[in-house]
């Protein structure tokens, strides 16, 4: 048997990382990819918040004189055909992507949670109806639904958020419902009943907090996919309208025509989207490992 360095092994297992930031640091080391994801997400959020300070030009100002400039010191990512600074637009685009991502995830999530909780908690015919409705929503292709929704509502930021949020509802509500059903069987819920607690209070105080972990995991995963959905909608001409610098919009239609003459118009927004979604996915993945107790080694 080879000699074993206990300290090394323990360090690897994270025994030194107790409490507070040491634990966070350890988790970051253990989940390098997740940490990278968190860094990307943080940068993304900071960019969105401080877009006005980071961007070097107004993202909307048109200047024919500097149209289609190659990436240079003046314009790090070049300019588009309107002479707008691509870098500034990407920086401001973070804001829109974040708004779409967080907005639709939060909206779809909130409704999904309410539906899922009610459905799982009340069961009976309410559940049956909700289940069928979510069957219906799930059998309709998400993009088709979003397409019709944006067509109905007209393309604007809030409408795009709503259109993307609606197809999210069944996904979220299914997860929450399954969780609620599982939780309902647990003795602590029965204990709450036995002390005479009302059903609503049980649902809010005991069931909901315990569905938080799967919700967060689902949320981060969805965050990424909503950003992608917005991009796809934009590609099909139904995303956030001009002149707002949505990344999807920057990539779509007209920009695609520049794929070889001015590739920076296509490359940078594409990278921005991929990176943001990638970051959200990395982080979500790690979060799932950390939050899901069954995943712990």
């Amino acid at each position, binding site marked *: 048997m080879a000699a*074993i360095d*206990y300290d090394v*092994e323990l360090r690897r*297992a994270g*025994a030194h*990382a107790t409490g507070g930031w040491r634990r966070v640091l*350890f988790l970051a080391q253990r989940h390098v990819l997740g940490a990278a994801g968190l860094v990307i997400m943080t940068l993304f959020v900071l960019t969105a918040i401080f877009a006005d300070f980071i961007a070097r030009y107004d993202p909307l100002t048109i200047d024919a004189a500097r149209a289609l400039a190659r990436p240079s010191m003046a314009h790090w990512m070049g300019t588009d055909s309107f002479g707008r600074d691509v870098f500034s637009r990407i920086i401001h685009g973070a804001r829109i992507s974040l708004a779409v991502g967080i907005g639709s995830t939060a909206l779809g999530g909130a409704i999904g949670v309410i539906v899922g909780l009610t459905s799982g908690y009340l069961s009976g015919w309410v559940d049956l109806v909700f289940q069928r409705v979510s069957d219906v929503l799930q059998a309709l292709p998400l993009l088709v639904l979003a397409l019709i929704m944006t067509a109905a509502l007209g393309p604007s930021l809030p409408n795009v958020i709503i259109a993307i949020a609606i197809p999210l509802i069944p996904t979220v509500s299914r997860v929450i419902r399954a969780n609620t059903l599982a939780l309902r069987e647990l003795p602590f819920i029965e204990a709450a009943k036995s002390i005479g607690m009302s059903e609503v209070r049980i649902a809010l105080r005991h069931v909901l907090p315990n569905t938080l972990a799967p919700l967060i995991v689902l949320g981060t995963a969805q965050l990424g996919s909503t950003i992608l959905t917005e991009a796809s909608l934009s590609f099909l001409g139904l995303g956030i309208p001009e002149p707002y610098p949505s990344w999807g919009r920057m990539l779509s239609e007209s920009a695609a025509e520049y794929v070889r003459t001015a590739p920076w118009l296509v490359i940078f927004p594409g990278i921005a989207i991929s990176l943001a979604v990638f970051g959200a996915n990395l982080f979500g993945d790690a979060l799932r490992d950390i939050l899901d107790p069954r995943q712990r*080694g």
Partner: protein
Amino acid sequence: MAKEFDLVLEVKNLKTVFFTNSGLFRAVDDISFTVRRGETLAIVGESGCGKSVTALSLMRLVPDPPGRIVGGSVSLEGTDLLALDEAEMRAVRGNRISMIFQEPMTSLNPVMRIGDQIVEAVRLHRNLSTKEARDIAVEMLRLVRIPEPARRAREYPHQLSGGMRQRAMIAMALACRPVLLIADEPTTALDVTIQAQILALILDLQKELGTGLVLITHDLGVVAQTAQRVIVMYAGRKVEEATVEALFADPKHPYTRGLMASIPAVPASGVPVQARLNEIPGTVPSLVRLPKGCAFAPRCKLAIKRCEEYPPLADWGGGHLAACWRADEVAEVA
């Protein structure tokens, strides 16, 4: 097998640790014991004291990471299992040494037929055709007294009751006629009447096949009814070892004694008034933050200053080992 060993298993100074993020768990700390042919050795102790890890260490199935066998030797009929490479060890597992687990439901593969699971065990170690192996499987099921074994062999685990599943596990474990069988709490998940059936079955088969048996349990009643020799574990250590008669007649370790006293007994007759039990105060210590010296000292009425030093396992006569400085006073004080 070239030669018949009387001493089937000899474990010396086995140490298994877990490296976890809350620290180093010395789950098995310097444990030694032996099992003879046809003998039943019981290991008792409370939850988390290292019984299962001991068993898994013998099979070399301790999950790594986080676990690691860090010392000692396990010799099965003279071969040191810890020195074998993984392929050699695979040839031993399920063949010369087998194990039955606590949860019969989760320990069987839910998507495989019972018969196929036994067939697999046989074919991994015997060069037999599927047909021959299937015959053996049915035969084994018959041996563990499953009615209509040929039909049951084609069923899936969920179609069997808990008792029958455990019988199937036993059939699988014994299919290759191992020299050593490890049973890790084989009846804890079962009802008392079924438990009695299963234990009787295991003892019968053991007698029939001459297998050495390591029976792990936390139920002193089961120990009394099944074992020839007993090891008592506490916090990863062996604190006492004796023949079953000696242990029950005269427990030498305060923990063993406390345990025996705290177990309510079915009144033989006329005992009954509702009365407080003798309790052992405090809780089982965490394996990471073990007290210095004797791990039981903080809960022990007999604890003295000296207990900060770990008491060696001493022979208190007739092979009755106990790790306590005041073993000879235990009977009087308690």
